[in-house]
């Protein structure tokens, strides 16, 4: 029963990627059919009415955007023939899965990067992305922790952090690549820090995940919403933007820990799929500092422009400053993965989620 389900998942994943490739290849034909530009992005990025209004003002076109919560969901949604997207915004961790299939069109966004923060610009240039692919927003991973339950410091090792959580609730990023990265940073070989080949690293599986999280009650979610309201909420390992959102929502003295060894920058990329003028216009508007300032202040992720003065929330501003101050030393999560490795990781992640859910609910 178990192996059958696993095989089904494998087939499903292969099918999704295949369908995704077909969909990408055919987007030119179906783009912007009714005066709208259709975008798919992480949840929260383009929700602000100001963004749609800016698009409308500048491009005279409606911005229609779909949201997703996980990389897997992104892949599934773009793979269906039901929907066609003009612009896709996605995590750099899955770029290698799709890079060959992003059409090489006339769209050139590289000029925009000239105004980026120098370090981010260098990182972008180092990535050798096509001209129609550019950095969108960045996030920093870290620990949002509840001082009433746990006390974390930058001196703590990963093992210490999870040990301190004891049996309390912790929330982990719902992203196999991020967790795989964390496991290898904690228990992996010190000589293999770049994590280029999945088979040469500690595998993502239930045993390693359990070793990492120890006795904690684990939830895997990117939108961990009400979990911080639980009395025994200890910490969430997630992205800084979400952490600040929830610190603001919860109105509790939660803290965010930027760990020198465990915190790293994750980047999102924007790829312009067709060269329709309206699409190009919308892409440029979305990449404008004005729009990214709006996005930044709504989501608390980091705009590639790195202008902390544009940030309004004091708590966010202090983190912002700290991040850009430490930026030269902070690691970047690249994790260039083959589709086969991603498939393995996705399957392993599904298994882990299933096990953890049954363990948690069983308790």
């Amino acid at each position, binding site marked *: 029963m178990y192996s059958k389900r696993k095989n089904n998942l494998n087939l499903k994943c292969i099918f999704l990627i295949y369908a995704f490739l077909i969909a990408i290849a055919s987007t030119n034909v179906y783009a912007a*059919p*009714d005066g*709208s530009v*259709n*975008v798919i992005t992480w*949840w929260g990025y383009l929700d602000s009415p100001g963004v749609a209004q800016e698009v409308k003002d500048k491009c005279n076109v*409606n*911005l*229609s*955007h*779909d*949201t*997703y*919560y*996980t990389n897997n*969901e992104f892949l*599934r*949604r773009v793979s269906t023939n*039901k*929907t066609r997207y003009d612009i896709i915004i996605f995590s750099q961790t899955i770029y290698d899965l799709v890079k060959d299939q992003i059409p090489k069109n006339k769209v050139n966004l590289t000029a925009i990067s000239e105004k980026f923060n120098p370090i981010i610009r260098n990182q972008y240039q180092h990535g050798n992305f096509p001209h129609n692919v550019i950095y969108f927003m960045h996030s920093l991973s870290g620990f949002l922790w509840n001082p009433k339950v746990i006390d974390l410091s930058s001196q703590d090792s990963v093992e210490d952090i999870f040990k301190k959580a004891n049996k309390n609730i912790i929330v982990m990023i*719902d992203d196999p690549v991020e967790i795989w990265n964390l496991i290898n940073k904690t228990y992996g070989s010190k000589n293999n820090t770049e994590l280029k080949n999945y088979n040469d690293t500690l595998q993502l599986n239930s045993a390693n995940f359990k070793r990492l999280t120890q006795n904690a009650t684990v*939830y*895997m*979610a*990117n*939108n*961990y*919403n*009400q*979990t911080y309201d639980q009395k025994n909420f200890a910490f969430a390992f997630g992205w800084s933007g979400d952490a600040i959102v929830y610190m603001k929502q919860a109105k509790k003295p939660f803290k965010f820990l930027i760990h020198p060894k465990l915190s790293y920058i994750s980047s999102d990329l924007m790829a312009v799929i067709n060269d329709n003028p309206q699409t190009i216009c919308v892409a440029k508007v979305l990449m404008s500092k004005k729009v990214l300032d709006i996005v930044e202040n709504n989501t608390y992720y980091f705009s590639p422009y790195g202008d902390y003065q544009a940030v309004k929330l004091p708590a966010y501003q202090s983190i912002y400053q700290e991040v850009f101050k430490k930026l030269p030393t902070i690691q970047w999560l690249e994790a260039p993965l083959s589709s086969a490795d991603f498939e393995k990781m996705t399957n392993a992640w599904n298994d882990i989620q299933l096990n953890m859910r049954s363990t948690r609910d069983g308790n």
Partner: protein
Amino acid sequence: MEINSLNAINRSIKKNITLSLLSLLALSLLILNVIYYSNVTAVNQQNKIEISSNFDLLKSNISEKISIIASSSAFVDYLRSGSVSQKSLKSDFIYDLKTLKLKDINGMKIVSASGDTIFSDGASSSYYVDLPLCYFDRGLDSTLGDCSHHLILYFDITALIKSLQKVNDNLIQCKHCTPIDFLSSKTFGSFNVANASKMPLFFDIKKPQSFNIITINLIVFLFMAILASWTWRRTNFILDKYISHPLKKIANKLKNGEGLAQNGEIDELAYLVNQIQDREEKLKIAKENENLVVIGQMLSQVAHDMRSPLAVINTIVKQAVQIPKRQRTLMRGADQQLRGLTDNLLSQYRVKPVTNLLTENTAHEPQKISILLSSIISEKQAEYNQLPVAIHYKSDSNSDNATTDISMVDFKRVISNILNNAIEAIHETGNVTVTLTASSNSAIIRINDSGVGMKPELIEKILNGKSVSYKKNGVGIGLASSYNFIQSWGGDLDIASQQNVGTTVIITIPTSIHHDIALQDDPCHEYADLILIDDNKSVTDAWELSAISKRRKIITFNNLNDVGRGIKKFDRTIPIYIDSDLGGAIRGEQYAKVLYEQGFFNIYLTTGYKNSSFEPMSWIKGIIGKEPNIG
């Protein structure tokens, strides 16, 4: 008693019975109605719970269907899509919704967090419920989920009522019953309710056909009335027949000076008289039985007394050679017959042998202290023969003549108690020594044991006459009581004790030295062939006659005081024949033991009983009949 009074009593009884029956009837109806209305209330409450439960079941069904759809990819994607994607997803989304076949739902609406309606279908109605759609990642989770959309359901009340009646066939609509709000709960199946309209539904549960309470009351009333009527009539009948009428009749006859009829009217009185007579008869029989016992005892005594003369007669007959043989044969036959009769009487009415040396009815005759002590010690030796305790008795020459007038029963109790204490004070092996010394007016009994000793404070308490308790299972009198007894005799008690060495209890009692029985020690031994001790003079005479005929010297004694005075003159080897029943408190076999302890060992017990009547006694050489046995 006057007739009028009897009538008044009769009327009073009937009135009370009537009132009681009416009260019983009223109480029954009251209890019936209370039970009925309690039951009605309970049933209504139960119905309300059942109806609410049916509501919950239907809500759960609807919620389950919605949950399935709301968790589907089409639904979630639709919620998370922009207008362009929603257009392309809408057909799948609606198709999924239609498959739900929610007949109870008139229409529905999905509203985003910003208040925009992103989907609507069907018509709205005044009955609605607003359900937040909360997602934790992609799964519905009303606790942890992010509730960014709301689903508003509009109900078709007619369809809903039909659905509820499908859930429970017994649900019926009612116009006047208490309404129950279908949407009053804070949850709708697995969904929380953000907002809801009122939706009162008038339902009741179909009741099985049952009797109306008025009918039940009527039936019970009739039943109780019939029962009351029957009871009243029956009671009247019984009162009249067995009490009122006979009493009236008797009273009238007595008033008119007429005699009572032999039958019927005075049956009850006759019965009572019979009962009394029967009791009297039984008492009489009991009295006769009691008398028979006394007579039996008397016969036993007579039989015993006859045995000695018979023994004499038999001896004389044997020796009287001058009597013709035929006459001798006749006399022997008569003797045998009388002996058989006495044996028969004795076997039937024999009084249990006295095993206790001292009895309550013993007179306070002067008794030799040495003999009393010897008897008590013998008893104790027998009683404690299983214990490794040796009991010794010593006396000086003066003490042989010392007598006392005190109650033998009390004396025995006191000495026995002190001896018991002495023996029990020895936890392992040890000795108890009783020493008797006497002076002209007092005797001193020292009871010494090698036991654990007594504490000085205990001794002080005892000598102060205070009761002390130091034995768990003591049944005799205590030392303190003994002390009181001794003082009442004009004597004294003293205790010398050393812990773990032993205790000596010293009892001083006044003596009553009677010169007529005081033994005059004769240093010269007297010779005889045998000694006979028997309280019956005829027996001793017979033995003396027999001894003369055989040219033997016999010394006979008829009481124990004479024995004590005279026996010391004789050699310890002399055969002594002693009667078992000496007619006093001391039995022959017990006195024989005293003699045995003084050194005499050729002791024979004479008795009219069979040998099997006695237990083995080491100090008795043989048990023989009462006929002279002079070899």
